[in-house]
């Protein structure tokens, strides 16, 4: 049976109006990401990468156009509907970790599982934390963890519910080079094991090159970046 694409954007426009002018960020953007594919979106600062990620994940609405997640148009849904889709099929890793300071590492990982009503949330979260090597840190609060450890918790949180799509926004932006490298290795390793669709937004070409496909966002449109030998290692 034909599988629907993981993410599909059709004729996506995003304008932002201020009192003096209207700024076009995305202009008739088209995108199709197949299930299990790994895609990197690169671009200069201010090119609209984060805006695009927000639209694809249903965190924001386009001015016009459609966004389909696993065949379902999320633009048509209401806020709670989009939240439900996110809870069901998406995981997130952000540059600034975005852990809830009031919850321990374990509870942070349990949260998305609990939100979707999983009864085995604790066991799954523990397993996820073990996978990122943080079994000894279950009851630590984010403020008690290093930056690298926090990002590992965030990765465990992203993978624990076994999402079909993982969005990563500059996941190494707040980390030093060596920790960043570790985190990326971990991210790709887990991704490969789970067969998750990955959409990675970054300005780091080296990081992007670990994906099968790289698109550049420029003037509100996506363009294919030609294949380079660096990526053949996958």
């Amino acid at each position: 049976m034909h599988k629907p694409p993981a993410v599909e954007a059709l004729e996506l426009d995003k304008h932002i109006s201020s009192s003096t002018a209207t700024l076009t960020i995305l202009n008739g953007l088209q995108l199709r990401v197949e299930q299990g594919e790994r895609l990197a979106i690169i671009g200069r600062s201010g090119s609209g990468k984060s805006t695009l990620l927000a639209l694809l994940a249903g965190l924001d609405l386009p001015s016009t156009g459609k966004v389909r997640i696993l065949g379902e148009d999320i633009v048509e849904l209401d806020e709670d509907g989009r939240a439900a889709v996110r809870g069901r099929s998406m995981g997130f890793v952000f540059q600034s970790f975005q852990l809830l300071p009031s919850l321990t590492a374990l509870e942070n990982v349990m949260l998305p599982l609990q939100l979707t009503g999983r009864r085995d949330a604790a066991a799954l979260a523990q397993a996820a934390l073990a996978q990122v090597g943080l079994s000894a840190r279950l009851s630590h609060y984010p403020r008690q963890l290093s930056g690298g450890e926090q990002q590992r918790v965030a990765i465990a949180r992203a993978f624990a519910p076994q999402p079909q799509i993982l969005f990563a926004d500059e996941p190494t932006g707040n980390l030093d080079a060596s920790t960043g490298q570790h985190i990326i290795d971990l991210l790709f390793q887990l991704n490969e094991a789970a067969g998750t669709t990955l959409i990675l937004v970054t300005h780091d070409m080296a990081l992007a090159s670990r994906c099968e496909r790289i698109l550049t966002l420029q003037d509100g449109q996506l363009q294919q970046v030609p294949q380079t030998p660096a990526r053949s290692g996958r």
Partner: protein
Amino acid sequence: MLALNLAWRQLRSLWASGEVRVLFLALVLAVAATTTVGLFTDRVASALVREGGLLLGGDMVVQADHPLPAQFVEAAEQQRLHTAQTMEFPSMVSDGEQSQLAEIKAVSDSFPLRGELTIAAAPATSGIAARSVPQPGSVWLEPRLAGLLALAVGDHVQLGESKLRVAALLQQEPSRGGDMFSYAPRLMMNLADVEATGLVQYGSRVRYQLLLAAGSGPLADYKAWAEARLGDGEKLMDVSTARPEMRSALDKSSQFLGLAAMVAVLLAMVAMYLASLPYVQNSFDSYAMMRCLGASRALMLKVLLYQALLLAALGALLGAAIGYVAQSGLSMLAGRLFAEALPAAAWTPLLLGCLAGLLILLAVLWPQLLRLAQVPALRILRRDLEHSPSEGKRWLQRLSLLPALLVMALLLLWQSGDWKLGGAMLVALCGLLAVTTGLARLGSSMLQRLPGSHSGWRLGLAGLRRRPWLAAAQVSALSLGLMALLLLALIRSDLLNNWQQSLPADAPNRFMINIQPDQLDAIQQRLHQAGLQDTQLFPMVRGRLTAVNGEPVLVDNYTDDRARRLAEREFNLSWAADMQADNQLLQGRWWTASQHGQPLVSLEQDLATALGLKVGDRLRYDIAGSPLELTVSSIRKVEWDSMRANFFAVTPPGVLDGFDASYISSFHLPIGNDTLINSLVKAMPNLTVLDIAAIMQQVRGVMARMTHAVEYVFAFSLLAGIAVLYAALAATRAERTREMTLLRVLGARSRQLYQAVFTEFAVIGLLAALVAVLVANLLAYYVSVQVLGIVYAFNLRFSLLLLMLAALLVPTAAWFGVRSDLQQPPRHLLQSV
């Protein structure tokens, strides 16, 4: 369960980082203040009821100026109530040679239903509780009467046609309350002996009473039944109407206490509002993330609601517990307001305090929390989303104050029990918010024109320009806090002083009535000899109002009880060339010397209002059978509390010359100085002296003790005031730290930054204090003149002090707040920014 767990965890984390602590503390203070005052006033109120019962001799009394219809007694018996009957009338009592006017009280065997009679065998011996009433054939005399007639136990007295044996001296009886009638010395006899004396005949001035107390049946039904059947000259009294003088003093002090508690609540609400700002601000990320992970809005609302309820429940419980402990302290301070200890506290004020806490918290916090529920998930990527609210959102934010204002108004109404007071506070609050917002707008537009510079104070002013709305919120909150504190200071010192001065130490405490014109010179001479200078003697003629503008005055023309009473009874007319110093002319003009003998009359305001009389009306009086027509020439306000002799109706001299007049005088004598009175009364037995010294002493005692009680409650307000200051500073601390760190990175010196903080907060403090001084004085004026009915004096000292304090204290506190941040290397802070 997930929602509750998240709510609890979130709360715990916010507690650790400090935001919630101020909010919680303020809530605890608010609940503690309301509960303390609520419990205390409740205890005082039930003590008053109990005392009232003792004073009436029962829980309820049906009183008439004629024998009571049998149905009242029959119904009481049917409803299984305890009953007793009494008759009271004045009569001469003699021992053969000497005679003395006495207040006779004849009682049935079951008297009294509440309290007890204390009797003794000889004067100055300790009394014992009587087991019965005087047996038929015997009487009990008050020691004063026995002294005047030189009688001892075992002697006989002549009362009308009966000769009765003195069986005991009556030291104390219930129902000898603040009623002026009962101040002639007492003779108590058995009801069965009355008929034989022949004293009670048609037209005699007798007061018949049926005393009632709850037996196995309740009183409320009887009350409703009896009230519907009361005829002319009959009235029903219960404990709520007993002891008017104590009730008035305690009511006023309860108002003071309520006000003080409300100030604490008001301050606490301001502190809570301010503390909720960083609380919400710091929670945005967490809620946005939850949204991002798929949490529905319903779940978020649940988490927030649980959070608010958890806070409210914990705060209310702790506050109520503190209130319970604090009120016993208050009761100790208030000392022995009554002869017996205060009754135990009821549970209702505790419950009401908790409910008030819940209401306060939800009103202040809920609109803020709703902002969290509406946070877009996109905020995870765009942190600016909540930082720069659009104009529409700002209006929404201001509207979010509405529930808090409404609850504030509701609480004010509830605590003051007075819509005028509550309304005035609310108008003052809104006025204050409007003025501060206006000032902030004006200020920020003026600051826009300021040229940029790197000096410290310019940086400070620039800070105000950058955050005009936050500055406005800070000015509003601080000025609210300062206003409340200033108001309290004004109440504490000025209003309480003025109240106490309304009953000065040398206020008259004896009334002498029934003075005959030929005794005037002798009395004035005796008073003068005793060192009482300038004692005035006022003439008094009794008359009944029979017609207004030719229309006869009939009881049935009036529906108001007071008007009906005034229409059917005689009252005193007096004459005077000059208006009494403590009277105030409201309408019309006082007469001149040339108007001697002209048929004019000046009326007291309440009487005129009750009977619907105005200047220019023609009044016809019946004075001892002769008509007298007078025209109303003025309306006066009279200070009845001053304890001086005052009159409903006063005419110019010469108008009442043709009528028999007696005179009345009031003067101050120290307690226990009875020699003068005794010798006067002995020389002129017709004189009656009313001694209200004991009552006034008690009222003055209440004033002094309640003043302490108000000071005690003031402590809550002071703490809440500190919480406001702290919260106002904490509200902007994170942003300020961020800004200063950046400025330091860019090369600003600490000195410049301190200057900037100092300037910014000096302006905020000064503005806040200016508005507070203005509003607090206006409010204090209104409260004293319109609500409490006492004179207002502007207190420049307090106002200046507040301005100085605010201009120094606020920036100093702010400086302390940022000092620790400025001493750290910027890198540490940059990491946390």
